[in-house]
């Protein structure tokens, strides 16, 4: 980084007014979000826009959130191991290219630029395709392989810069003076390129710990990294704990860099101490990876669920009572979960698909029949919710929670009576309307307004698309994930969303009201299912039984704010929840409560119409 200035810049080059203004503005632009992040991590309230009062409660929340720490641990393990291998590979490659002439050298060097430059998404898709084809289980190891692959070209190029800058004469002198090749490498070559190796390693570490896209495609059972966790937190009602953990990480990185810098400079600390330190760090990391492999494999349970859809306290009690260790991963929608299982992510014992997905998965042989004799508490489940068309025998699913998609509006801003889906087409609310990004539900609503059934007729689909294209200019966006924040911050005033979210919004502020459109509302039932080949099927059954026990169910409802088909549990609820018309609405006045079903091969057509809608 040292410049080549041979003299002072007394000409004031690059210090003109405009240059200074742009620089200041640019730095401010870069810093502002970070400052906001840090400041609001100490805010009492939930929003990131209004300062309430100083509080450390989000830090407390971070320290008590076990899954957050687990994901941080995964991130660190992945980053450290991939950095180590990357640095070794990178150093080798840089020396090879820099110091030797061999056939295909230019090709090889040019090939290195490709991963550096190719959009990450293509690499993510491609490496996933490889793992799928060779049936390599997705998990920590697949992520590490992927991270090494995308960071090693960067590291190589950084080290190569130093290798090319090192004069050959230095090494020649060492060899002439009788040192062996190996000695020359250790005592002359390595120290010369060391700064490059360190920069390269730091770069690899940064790339790995920050990576989202490639990890998103290659993650499997129990390998959620911090970015994946943050993604799901943002998707499902983010809390300022994200600010808190980010602040902790910034401070930690700062001290880590300061420490390495001091370590490098310090002459007092001998090589042996440095080596021991490195060894200790390595040992810790490897034990973090290895020890879980030897722990008792039988007393485990891997759950794959929507984020924020299961009470951590209930899980903790289950662990305490049975000694079974529960690991949870999260998906953002049914399709993502299906794709992951189809791609060969195995090892999950319990999943929570929505009705239509139960049918798809069962047809594809992805579900295992549930042994009902292990689930005594099934008697508490309201029979109206079992044996629904998606699983008429009830063999593959136990209903977990149910709900419906409806309209929520901010009654301070929306004064009309909302009783129809057409309200979402009202130009009065231009830029303040939000639709979900669930294509089946969006097309369902359009079909309902047109008074036609949502079936596999392309003409009807076209009509529905035309209606949606009329609506599009009025919309804020199609989005299901940040609905809560957008409503709370006043970015939208009327939104299509799920009842659990409406219940939470209403609890936060009663001005958020539920409207039930007269055309009918889509209804969904989420189910507890066991994937075929689940390694701990009996534990999953034990857990299902535990979960639908009325007392546990009641606690769970209170946390997730979605109703469950368990009358006894409802009776145990606090009256404010039990009689909450949003959570348990009187649905008799809604003419059509419809379970949306999978459209099979017609999905392709719907997807094309959906992409068309998005792209215009």
């Amino acid at each position, binding site marked *: 980084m*040292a410049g080549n*200035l041979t*003299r002072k*810049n007394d*000409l004031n*080059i*690059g210090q003109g007014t405009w*240059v200074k203004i742009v*620089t200041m*503005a*640019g*730095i401010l632009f*870069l*810093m*502002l*979000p*970070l400052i*906001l*992040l840090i400041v*609001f991590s100490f805010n009492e309230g939930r929003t*990131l826009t*209004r300062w309430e009062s100083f509080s450390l409660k989000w830090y407390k929340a971070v320290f008590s959130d076990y899954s957050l720490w687990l994901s941080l641990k995964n991130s660190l393990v992945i980053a450290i191991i991939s950095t180590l291998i990357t640095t070794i*590979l990178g150093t080798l490659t840089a020396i*090879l290219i820099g110091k030797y002439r061999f056939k295909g050298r230019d090709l090889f060097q040019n090939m290195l*630029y490709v991963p550096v430059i190719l*959009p990450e*998404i*293509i690499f993510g*898709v*491609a490496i996933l*395709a*490889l793992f799928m084809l060779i049936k390599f289980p997705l998990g920590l190891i697949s992520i590490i392989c992927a991270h*090494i*692959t995308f960071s*090693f070209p960067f590291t190589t190029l*950084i080290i190569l810069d130093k290798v090319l800058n090192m004069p050959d004469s230095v090494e020649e002198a060492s060899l002439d003076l009788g040192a062996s090749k190996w000695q020359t490498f250790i005592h002359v070559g390595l120290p010369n390129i060391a700064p*490059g190796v360190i920069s390269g390693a730091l770069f690899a570490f940064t790339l790995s710990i*920050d990576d*989202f896209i490639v990890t998103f495609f290659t993650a499997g059972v129990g390998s959620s990294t*911090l*970015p994946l966790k*943050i*993604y799901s937190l*943002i998707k499902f009602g*983010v809390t300022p704990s*994200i600010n808190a953990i980010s602040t902790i990480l*910034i401070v930690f990185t*700062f001290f880590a860099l300061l420490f390495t810098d001091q370590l490098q400079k310090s002459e007092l600390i001998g090589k042996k101490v440095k080596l021991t330190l490195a060894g200790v760090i390595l040992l810790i990391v490897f034990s973090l990876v290895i020890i879980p492999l030897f722990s008792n494999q039988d007393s485990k349970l891997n759950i794959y669920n929507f984020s924020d859809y299961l009470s951590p306290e209930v899980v903790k009690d289950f662990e305490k009572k049975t000694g079974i260790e529960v690991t949870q991963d999260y998906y953002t929608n049914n399709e*993502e979960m299906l*794709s992951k299982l*189809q791609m060969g992510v195995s090892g999950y014992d319990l999943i929570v698909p929505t009705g239509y997905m139960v049918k798809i998965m069962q047809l594809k042989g992805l579900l295992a029949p549930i042994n009902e004799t292990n689930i005594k508490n099934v008697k508490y489940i309201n029979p109206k919710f079992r044996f629904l068309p998606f699983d008429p025998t009830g063999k593959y699913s136990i209903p977990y929670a149910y709900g419906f998609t409806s309209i929520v509006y901010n009654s301070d801003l929306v004064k009309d009576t909302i009783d129809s889906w057409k309200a979402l087409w009202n130009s009065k609310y231009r830029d303040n309307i939000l639709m979900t990004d669930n294509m089946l539900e969006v097309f369902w609503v359009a079909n309902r307004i047109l008074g036609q059934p949502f079936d596999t007729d392309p003409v009807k689909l076209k009509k529905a698309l035309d209606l949606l294209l009329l609506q599009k200019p009025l919309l804020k*966006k199609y989005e299901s994930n*940040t609905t809560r924040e957008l409503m709370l*911050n*006043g*970015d939208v005033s009327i939104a299509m969303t799920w009842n659990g979210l409406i219940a939470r919004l209403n609890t936060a502020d009663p001005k958020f009201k539920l409207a039930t459109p007269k055309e009918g509302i889509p209804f969904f039932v989420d189910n507890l299912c066991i994937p075929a080949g689940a390694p701990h099927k009996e534990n999953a059954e034990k857990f299902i039984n535990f979960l639908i026990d009325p007392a546990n169910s009641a606690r769970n409802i209170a946390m997730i704010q979605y109703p469950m088909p368990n009358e006894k549990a409802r009776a145990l609820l606090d009256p404010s929840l039990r009689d909450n018309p949003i959570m348990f609405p009187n649905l008799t006045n809604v003419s059509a409560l419809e379970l949306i079903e999978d459209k099979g091969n017609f999905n*392709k057509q719907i*997807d094309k119409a959906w992409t068309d809608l*998005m*792209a215009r």
Partner: protein
Amino acid sequence: MMPPAFWLLLFFIVPLIIVIGYSFSMTGTEGGIDHKLTLEHYFRAFNGLYVSIFLKSFLYALVTTVITVTIAFPMAYFMAFATPRMKIIMMFLIILPFWTNFLVRMYSLMSLLGKSGFINSILLNSGIIEEPLKMMNNSFGMYVGFVYWNLPFMILPIFSSLDRINISLIEASLDLGATKNQTFWRITFPYSVPGVVAGIVFTFIPTLGNFIIPEFLGGPDNLMIGNVITAQYLEVRNWPFGSALATVLTMFVMIFISIYIRFFDPAKSKNMVTF
């Protein structure tokens, strides 16, 4: 014989070949791959709808790159001629965003730009505006996200090129009667070109493939090719079509890279970001 080359072959080249293979396969019922040869996905990819999404993505990436280079150049220019102490401070501030997860930064931008976000509430409270400005969930918000994300990747290579200028060169030019403008265009600017080009590559291509920023900060119109590819893989489960789109995108990028390597051999100009 060469583990690094082998690694690259196994985990990079082979996967790309698999994707190309998938792109010529039929889609199985309910997702999956049916190993029968077809060109239907390419016919579909070159249908007007997807071509327009490709073009739109190019446009977004292009505009982002232009804005980013416009902001980054003066910053790098200032930094290259600043005092050593200032250089270190600037370097620290520029890499600071890297210490925060990309998604968190985007989330923080959302709270900055929202209707009742930080900027709007300051402007409203001070009476400068009466109606909140619409800065998010539209193209503006998306560009802010892209520029924020790319700015450090643009500043650092430009800085590292400009930092090599020996000030005596500039002084000589001025002494010999060139104007400040001439000196800038004849001396300083040529020095910066490798850095600018590297910065453009590091901005343009990742922007082209990004799908998170349009999702978080963009509006209903801001659909990019990355969103479509992701949806094909993770939602619609039409892997062959997703692969065909990915293959087309790869081809474009390859053409771009080969032009880049031909005219600006990055190894010779040494413009890699070094910390």
